[in-house]
């Protein structure tokens, strides 16, 4: 601990500077308060500063829910650290509450002795009533176990902007930057990255850029002058692997991964999509990359998006659709057509809380069984899942690789947590990305539309416009090799088995499952998708405490890695944390006859490290008792 002396306006303030290895901050306010922007700015600045970080946005489905109410609270949690972290943190150290509803909704997670920065301007009788407070919590002593800092953010923002010429409403909308300036001061962050961002973002409205910059600096200076906090914290850069980095959201990484697949395959990218939360950002992002030859087709519905993708795949494009669970339900008939016609394409399901419309803006992993089985007939298709925001890039490439090589529609699972969350990404070298080139059939000699590659069982990709390859495909059962319509009993069974075998053979083309920790032992924590971070954090924590626990993570959910059965057999207990009621566990039990301990969480938010750690401890204790 070191001390510095700040001299301002003739008074001497003793400000203590303290080093932290990590800190978790949650910004919470009304959905119109700009909390997502504020959180993203803090994250980007910290990323540029060299911290490792992980973010968790949490916002309502309504664009502007009734002001001041609990359902209208929008929050953004960011964890920054000087070491390698895997989750956005369990409990916040700092809560910025822009109104009473934000305080009420988010307080339960705050650590004891945590910091609350409350915007007193909004703690009036009306807002307190809307949030369900009988008395003002800032004054009734109910927050005694926290360190509360009461700041009239709105008033000070307006004062800062007096004479700026901005109308009241525009002035009011700058107050999140006052809060951001304060938090920047508290955690010793530079202002430049946000100043630059504001100047870039409001290049056409410099008045707004100037106002926000002025307000942010005012927030910073307010802390510096008043000595409000008396302590400021430093979180040093993390010791990250050397390389070039950027901060990336999952949906951005997914969009870039698809463009990378387009470049590495030499095929134009065709995205057919219908807007749906939380997948729409992939459509938005790709629509901005037309100079990469990307076609984005916003279809009239989910079904048309899927069918358009099938048409584009027939024509020889790298065809992709993006959706969420309800969209998959609508697409399933067309997905089955894609299985029957054996064309390559990728169906990205950014999962959200279900069933039905469910929780559109909250996360869940409950579409696994839907994408595995939600179609008529025996109709398997490969399923790949992304594990973190940056991993969406690699997962997209892998899904495209399998689709193109094996001539099959592939499902890529992501979810709202990693789609909207962000983390630093060490940028890959383009030359090192996989080569996805694949030839179209051109030789009419010996051509049959369902003649197969002996190794992969992939059929030829014979695109229209190729002389001599005229042929017909469709949803009716195919005769083996010729592809003609066939109702023959034996042929049907043969074809059903062929299509299943084709998918099963992909197991020979994917890596074996890697176990981290002891290769065998008492407990294996097995995860898939976005639980990777919390599982890694929990298992690492447990192992540091000498507990016998290992972990492994499934990238491929269909087919499973060929050694999965062996891995499961080597452990006494297998714990599968899932944001559903045990969907992967069901598949594992059925396939390997191994008992699986399911750890479910369906709250619309991800597991915390602590929750998984505690479950591991329980299992180990019960084993010892036995």
């Amino acid at each position: 601990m070191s001390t510095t002396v700040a001299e301002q306006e003739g008074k001497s303030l003793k400000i203590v500077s303290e080093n932290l290895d990590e800190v978790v901050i949650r910004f919470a306010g009304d959905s119109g308060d700009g909390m997502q922007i504020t959180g993203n700015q803090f994250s980007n600045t910290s990323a540029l500063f060299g911290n490792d970080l992980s973010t968790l946005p949490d916002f309502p489905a309504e664009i502007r829910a009734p002001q001041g109410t609990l359902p209208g609270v929008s929050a953004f949690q960011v964890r920054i650290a000087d070491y390698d972290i895997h989750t956005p943190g369990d409990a916040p150290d700092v809560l910025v509450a822009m109104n009473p509803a934000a305080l009420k909704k988010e307080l339960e997670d705050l650590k004891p002795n945590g910091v609350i920065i409350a915007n007193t301007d909004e703690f009036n009788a009306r807002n307190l009533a809307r949030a369900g407070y009988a008395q003002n919590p800032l004054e009734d002593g109910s927050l005694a176990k926290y360190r509360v800092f009461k700041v009239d953010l709105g008033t000070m923002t307006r004062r800062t902007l007096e004479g700026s010429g901005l109308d009241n409403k525009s002035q009011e909308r700058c107050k999140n930057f006052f809060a951001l300036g304060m938090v920047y001061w508290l955690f010793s962050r530079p202002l430049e990255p946000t100043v630059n961002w504001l100047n870039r973002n409001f290049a056409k409205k410099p008045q707004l850029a100037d106002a926000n910059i002025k307000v942010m600096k005012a927030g910073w200076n307010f802390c510096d002058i008043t000595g409000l906090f008396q302590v400021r914290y430093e979180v040093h850069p993390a010791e990250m692997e050397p390389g070039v980095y950027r901060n990336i959201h999952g949906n951005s990484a997914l969009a870039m991964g698809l463009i990378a697949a387009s470049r590495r395959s030499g095929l134009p990218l065709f995205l057919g999509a219908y807007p749906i939360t939380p997948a729409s950002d992939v459509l938005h992002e790709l629509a901005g990359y037309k100079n990469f030859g990307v076609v984005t087709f916003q279809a009239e519905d989910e079904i048309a998006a899927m069918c358009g993708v099938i048409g584009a795949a027939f024509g020889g494009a790298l065809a992709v659709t993006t959706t969420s669970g309800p969209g998959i339900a609508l697409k399933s008939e067309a997905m089955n057509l894609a299985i029957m016609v054996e064309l390559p394409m990728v169906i990205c399901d950014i999962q959200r809380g279900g069933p039905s419309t469910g929780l559109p803006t909250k996360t869940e992993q409950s579409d696994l069984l839907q994408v595995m089985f939600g179609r008529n007939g025996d109709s398997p298709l490969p399923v790949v899942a992304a594990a973190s925001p940056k991993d969406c890039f690699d997962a997209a490439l892998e899904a495209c690789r399998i689709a193109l090589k094996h001539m099959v529609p592939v499902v890529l699972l992501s979810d709202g947590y990693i789609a909207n969350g962000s983390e630093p990404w060490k940028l890959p070298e383009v030359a090192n990305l996989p080569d996805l080139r694949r030839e179209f059939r051109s030789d009419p000699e010996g051509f049959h539309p369902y003649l197969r590659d002996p190794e992969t069982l992939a059929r030829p990709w014979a695109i229209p416009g190729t002389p001599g390859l005229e042929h017909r495909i469709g949803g009716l059962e195919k005769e083996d090799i010729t592809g003609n319509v066939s109702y023959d009993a034996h042929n049907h069974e043969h074809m059903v088995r062929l299509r299943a075998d084709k998918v099963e053979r992909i197991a020979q083309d994917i890596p074996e499952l890697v176990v981290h920790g002891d290769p065998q032992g008492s407990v294996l924590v097995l995860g898939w998708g976005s639980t990777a971070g919390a599982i890694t954090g929990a298992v690492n924590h447990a192992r540091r405490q000498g507990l016998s626990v290992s972990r492994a993570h499934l990238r491929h959910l269909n087919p499973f890695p060929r050694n999965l059965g062996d891995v499961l057999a080597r452990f006494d207990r297998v714990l599968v944390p899932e944001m559903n009621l045990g969907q992967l566990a069901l598949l594992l039990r059925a396939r390997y006859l191994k008992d699986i301990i399911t750890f479910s969480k369906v709250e619309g938010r991800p597991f915390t490290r602590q929750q998984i750690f505690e479950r591991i401890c329980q299992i180990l204790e019960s084993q010892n008792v036995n």
Partner: protein
Amino acid sequence: MSTEAPTLTKKDFQTDQEVRWCPGCGDYAILSAVQQVFPELGIPREQFVVVSGIGCSSRFPYYMNTFGFHSIHGRAPAVATGLKIARPDLEVWIATGDGDAMSIGGNHLIHVLRRNVGVKILMFNNRIYGLTKGQYSPTSELGKKTKSTPTGSVDYPFNPLALAIGAGATFIARSVDIYQQHLKETLRRAARHKGTAFIEIYQNCNIFNDKAFAYMTEKEHRDDGTLYLEHGKPMVFGKSHDKGIRMKGTEMEVIELGSGLSADDCLIWDETLDNPATAFLVSQLLPPRFPTPIGVIRSVDAEPYESLVSHQIEAEIERKGAGKLDELIRSGDIWTVHENHTVTN
């Protein structure tokens, strides 16, 4: 040495697949007309793709020796749209029926029409569900008794031409399976159109809805029951051209020619009007008060969807330069972690 493409014939467009429509089905006549017109178009066979949905009409691709896609019920326009955007060089034709296009696929039909995707839609209208064995369709007349409506249908039917006009289609026509010359000429006109061409083809289902169009196709009714629309010509019909159509206020009426009235008094048919109001009035000419209009009821120019899509991409490449993956990945704020773990921006 000549570089011309080999001359194609009807035979080149026939497949080795056994045609499995019922004997006497109107689909045979439509297939024959299409197989005669395609070789005339001067387009290599491999450039054609026939896309269909589900239903009797949707078996069409199997009988055309081109690329073909027999997709799922109602979705042919969506499959064809994706294909045409990805491959604007292809000639994409859709074979569909009144159930496939107007019922389960109604949404895709109106959207392909409004987008003006460069595909040709042949909608076989037999006013019945054939492949599911005889239920009423969205174009069946009110009161129709079928297997699923033993006491008569209480559904008001769609008027396909009016629907296409409402959806903003740029080329709309009607023909009849057995009017072979007219049908072929209509197909040629559709082939030349840039953008979506929608042809309603009256097609007789002799099993489940026989003689549905007898009111106009039977010999004794044909002349008085059919109004041949010809661009720039007066709207005259009847065996000895003795009847005509003229405007009366905001409606159309039938007039008898000869007694002081001549073809000059009839409306001159103009299929190119930007305002679709007149085409809509024509779509409302229904028996028994009026003859049934066939021919092109609307043909206007508008840039096809796929061409707008391609032009946007070309313009963005022109404006920003062809995208570079490495630059894309490195866009935004980046920082470098050095071997000694120092960080620079």
